[in-house]
């Protein structure tokens, strides 16, 4: 198996990738400036998808995502819609209000998305 995508770590955020489990854990507050700054995260997620048949985004500790981050997630969902062989799940948290609102929109773009709240 090829190498795992390198972790992305900032002052208040991090993203860790585990190709063996097909999991990307995205945590903290992501408030990068524009899609350009989200490109490394998008690339890492696409790299993970090359390595797995099934990918889970674990967002249970993602307290905050700005609109550029929401745009990146939408773009990623559209990419997954184009590759219908890959199964995408999102693990979300009941206790983080924005997730209940904004992640359901992502599901509208990708109806096969499995969205689980805990």
């Amino acid at each position, binding site marked *: 198996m090829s190498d795992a995508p390198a972790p992305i770590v900032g002052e208040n955020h991090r993203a860790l990738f585990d190709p063996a489990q097909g999991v990307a854990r995205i945590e903290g*507050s992501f408030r990068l*400036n524009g899609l350009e700054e989200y490109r490394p995260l998008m690339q890492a997620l696409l790299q993970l998808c090359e390595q797995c048949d099934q990918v889970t985004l674990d967002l249970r500790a993602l307290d905050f995502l*700005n*609109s550029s981050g929401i*745009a990146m997630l939408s773009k990623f969902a559209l990419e997954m819609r184009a590759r219908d062989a890959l199964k995408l799940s999102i693990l979300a948290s009941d206790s*983080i209000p924005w997730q209940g609102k904004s992640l359901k*929109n992502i599901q509208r773009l990708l109806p096969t998305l499995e969205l689980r709240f805990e």
Partner: protein
Amino acid sequence: MSETLGDFLSERDCGEHLLLSFSKGSLPLKERWRNNSLTADFLADYAITFFPAGRGDDTRALKRQREIKDSVSYIANELLENGLKYHEGGAAHDLNIRFEIHSDRLVISQTNVTGASRAERLRHLARELLEEDIDTLFLQRLENTDETSAGLGLITILHDHGAALAWRLSPLPNALHAVTTQATLILNPEEE
């Protein structure tokens, strides 16, 4: 003469409020970016003082507090990101954010200075957001994220956070405009 778009609330009679003013100064935008989150989180924490959760077992009040904090932080952060991105006023003009706390609503107003072409683009965007169906616009924007995400931030404020938006443009010398974007979040006391 100022022009307003949407249901813009004047600053008069606003009661409890907080006003923060920032000089753009010499630091490049990239280095100032983290201050958006510091300010947004500060306003969100400040707000919940006025909506106490009471005893620890009051889950409904705690949930309401979490929702207020989440929406204030998101809205303030998006307005500040836009304000910094589009501020063209240079050192002579500050950016500011004003936060009004009422028992039934929260009002966040962010002001920055822009040139004529940005002001015109903003008028166009504001009319679109005020007149078109937000759900349809929102899905269109999500499907076309290659375009700027600035519009998406405002649409998310309307669509996901249920706030209302309004704008005021006031002319300044040298073809500049002071632009205020105002988000009003109606608080529902019956919220479960």
